[in-house]
């Protein structure tokens, strides 16, 4: 089975288990006993398409606003790593493992980390962004947008993967679509994905900002 089919199968099962809003693992530690230190993190996009960049931006913003970690901004990443964004190769079929980062990419990530000097590097991908249109027999059409979100957080200096993320998110437009900008519903989908990751991140790592 090729990796794309495997990923579809995983996501399909996750959808059935998780209900219509999408499903999967939003954020989980590879080793549940591992304690994330409230130090510093850089979000790196693993893809170079527009949806990857936006997802990284939104996740950076959410982590910065809601956690105790010191979060490096995407502009700083761009300045420090001249060729950023880089496409980080993935392994989506990995015998039930949850390390999406291709092992061959670790030296490159290590190099990026050495420039940014954060304790964690969170790599995220938005894959298979899709638009499905449906027109009812009574008139009126609607669009549903969906994306698969993948992520791995690495700890430094060890370079070990400590967390995994893999879920599908969907968003449908409404009659208000006529008054919305072109990318509004995909933007919403990506923002919501970032929010969900950070909700779970805070729960799991206990690094939320006190109210």
């Amino acid at each position, binding site marked *: 089975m090729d990796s794309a089919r495997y990923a579809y199968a995983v996501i399909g099962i996750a959808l059935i288990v998780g209900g219509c809003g999408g499903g999967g693992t939003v954020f989980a530690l590879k080793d549940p006993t591992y304690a994330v230190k409230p130090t510093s993190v850089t979000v790196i996009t693993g893809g*170079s398409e*527009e949806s990857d960049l936006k997802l990284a931006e939104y996740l950076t913003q959410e982590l910065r606003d809601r956690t105790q970690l010191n979060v490096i901004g995407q502009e700083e990443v761009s300045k420090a790593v*001249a060729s950023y*964004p880089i*496409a980080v190769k993935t392994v989506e079929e990995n015998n039930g493992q949850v390390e999406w980062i291709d092992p061959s990419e670790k030296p490159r990530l290590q190099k990026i980390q050495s420039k940014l000097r954060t304790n964690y590097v969170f790599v995220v991908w938005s894959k298979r962004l899709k638009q499905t249109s449906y*027109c009812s027999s009574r008139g009126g059409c609607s669009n549903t*947008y969906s994306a698969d979100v993948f992520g791995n957080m690495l700890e430094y200096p060890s370079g070990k993967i400590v967390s995994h993320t893999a879920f599908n998110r969907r968003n449908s437009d409404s009659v208000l679509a006529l008054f919305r*900008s*072109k990318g509004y519903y995909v933007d919403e989908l990506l923002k919501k994905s970032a929010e969900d990751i950070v909700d779970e991140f805070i729960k799991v790592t206990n690094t939320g900002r006190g109210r």
Partner: protein
Amino acid sequence: MHRPSVMRLGTIIGLILALSGCSTFHLTQEPFQPKGKKLAVIAGMTNDSSLRIAKSFGDELGKTSMFQVLSQTQVAQAIPNYPQLVKGPYKSAYFEIDVDYAKTDVGRVKELQQHLGVDYVYVLWAPATVSHGNSSWFSKHYLVTQIVAQLFESPGGKEVGRGQYAVRVDDQTHQVLSEDVRRVALEMAEKTHTVK
């Protein structure tokens, strides 16, 4: 006609318009007289689509116009760490580009221009490649890449032209259809009075 068919027909008509009917380049400074012949085509994004189209467009422009176009190898040698991300002229670009030319990071374009020593820099962004329908016995399936581009004068970074268009990409080989790119290159050559 069944409604999904109507919708598909609408999409196809939109694609035909994007691929053939509409202008792909227009001048923002008129009248235009080229100040020099040296030109570089730069990808404003680091993704494969942008790089592939930058190469293809540069090749076609070199053939159809009097511009002396730098090869992508020369561009990569001149600009450290090329390709680099340059904030592009759009608000969003998922399935279609929501263009806003005021959003371009012109400062970054000027920085890149300094390395090139050319008279003009054509920066293109190809942020979205979408798939419409499937292949059949009678038709081949192509992916469609949406592109937005701006032509800047050097030095100074004054914008002198811009355009938005789409080109077809072979589903299997991922090669850009040269006839689509040639049409865009020819239109730019005509409008800048540089046709060979």
